[in-house]
């Protein structure tokens, strides 16, 4: 169980995340929606502790994550893996090494500096890449891959961390609809098959509805909606986005990567 208690983050006069309280049970797929600047990214970064909270606490299985330092903090980051909008792969390293970056906190510093990964670790990396049809690209440089492929490499890196939680910050915002669907299907799969908790920031409503068990809507740093996709009424949408769903759909049709339907019916929400 991941628990945010009154989590707050201020940047100068701006309050990016304002007194957010949430309980996320293990194995849930949670979508966070809201306009740009609503505080979604900052909230995920706070959970991974890439950003420090100005107030409030983050609890996981009874541990106060906000108080962790040094090795304990790095262990927490390994446990709460992160996926970024711009993938954040090391462009000049090959795909295999990028994926093995996920092991760094599991092993000795010296052998890592010399890139002495064991055969088992390499095999795990290859097998994980193979799950996303990328084993053949293992020795290519990361920057030779397409955006969708890079995001799947980033997911493989996250999985090598053997995390309990996956934090995905706008994972499909830089991708075309087809690649966006492949990536969302991959996230759905690891949520269902591996039992990982997935918290996913999305700025399109349809994608959140299609893939998530539960949706949290944020506006101006605050949680304004928390419930099942079905409970997301027209009134709530207006509150979150400041426009009606029709206007939103129209705007999305023009601008956004929306992944409205599941390709694989077996992965649909029961």
């Amino acid at each position, binding site marked *: 169980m991941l628990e945010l208690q009154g989590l707050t983050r201020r940047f100068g006069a701006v309050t990016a995340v304002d007194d957010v309280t949430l309980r996320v049970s293990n194995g849930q797929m949670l979508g966070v929606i809201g306009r740009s600047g609503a505080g979604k990214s900052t909230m995920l970064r706070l959970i991974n502790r890439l950003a420090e909270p100005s107030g409030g606490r983050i609890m996981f299985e009874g541990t106060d994550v906000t108080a962790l330092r040094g090795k304990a903090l790095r262990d927490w980051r390994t446990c709460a893996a992160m996926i970024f909008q711009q993938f954040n792969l090391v462009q000049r390293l090959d795909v*295999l090494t990028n994926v093995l970056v996920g*092991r760094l906190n*599991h092993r000795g510093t010296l052998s890592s500096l010399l890139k002495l990964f064991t*055969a*088992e*670790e*390499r*095999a*795990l*990396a*290859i*097998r994980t890449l*193979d799950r996303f049809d990328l*084993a*053949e690209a*293992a*020795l290519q440089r990361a920057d030779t891959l397409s955006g969708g492929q890079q995001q799947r490499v980033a997911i493989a890196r996250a*999985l090598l961390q*053997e*995390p*309990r939680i996956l934090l995905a910050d706008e994972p499909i915002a830089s991708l075309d609809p087809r690649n966006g669907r492949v990536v969302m299907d991959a996230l759905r799969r*690891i949520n269902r098959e*591996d*039992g*990982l908790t997935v918290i996913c920031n999305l700025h399109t409503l349809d994608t959140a509805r299609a893939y998530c068990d539960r949706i949290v809507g944020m506006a101006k740093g605050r949680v304004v909606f928390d419930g099942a996709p079905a409970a997301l009424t027209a009134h709530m949408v207006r509150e979150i986005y400041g426009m009606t769903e029709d206007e939103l759909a129209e705007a999305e049709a023009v601008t956004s990567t929306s992944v409205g339907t599941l390709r694989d019916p077996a992965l649909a929400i029961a």
Partner: protein
Amino acid sequence: MSPGLATIDAAAVAAARAKVPAAFGSPPTQRVLRWLGWLAFAAWLGTVLWWFDVSPVRIWNGIAGVMTILRLMVPPSPGEHLDDILRGLSESVAMAFLGTVMAAIVAVPLGFLGARNVATSLLFRFSLRRVFDGFRGVDQLIWALVYVRAVGLGPLAGVLAIFTADIAVLAKLYAEAIENAEKRQAEGVASAGARGVLVMRFGILPQVLPVMLAQALYYFESNTRSAAILGIVGAGGIGLQVAERIRIRAWDEVAFIIILILLTVAAIDLLSSRLRQRLIGTAPLH
């Protein structure tokens, strides 16, 4: 839990190895070649050490000599000619400043001409780059000796030496910064119909100007240090004072001058790092 490392057994390793063999290390021929490379490197290192007769005994004796000099340096003393020392030092700083500023300005157009994404003629760029290489291949001290003969003793020879030696280095660094500039920003300007020189002015220069200024500042600091040497060959600055005092073995005065040089360089470094941080800050460039 996700299927982790614990689930990987020998069979799983074998399966992955069969799928992507190269992920488990390079092929034997490549490994042999790599070992041969390292062996050649070690052999070369050993040969050079043997050639110059570098032995632990000689190094140990050298250290003993240095220790004697260090003992003679304590306590440092300004001697009887503090005014000469201070004049020499300010002359060195002024030489470095003048030489670097001139070189930095001349290097900007040369940098653009030498950049792959600006000068599209391969032959022209190749010739220009070789000229840069030629100028860089000759050390500042050689230039100083040449200019002392040409324009006479004094700081002008030093300024010209710094100027000549740095044009080529800065032009090369600038050209590389320009080549690493982001193409998309220049493309945005070109798409608006701007001519080539304006694309450089508005699409590339704002990206590279902070880098250029930072490098020029770094060279100013580095040149202050090397300007201290130029005086030894008569090209002005503090170097002459140092050389004279070493000749008469006034090690305490040498130590005093060295400390002054260190303090000056540290002050310049501090100022230039402040300035560099301002330059790469958030204020828009003009």
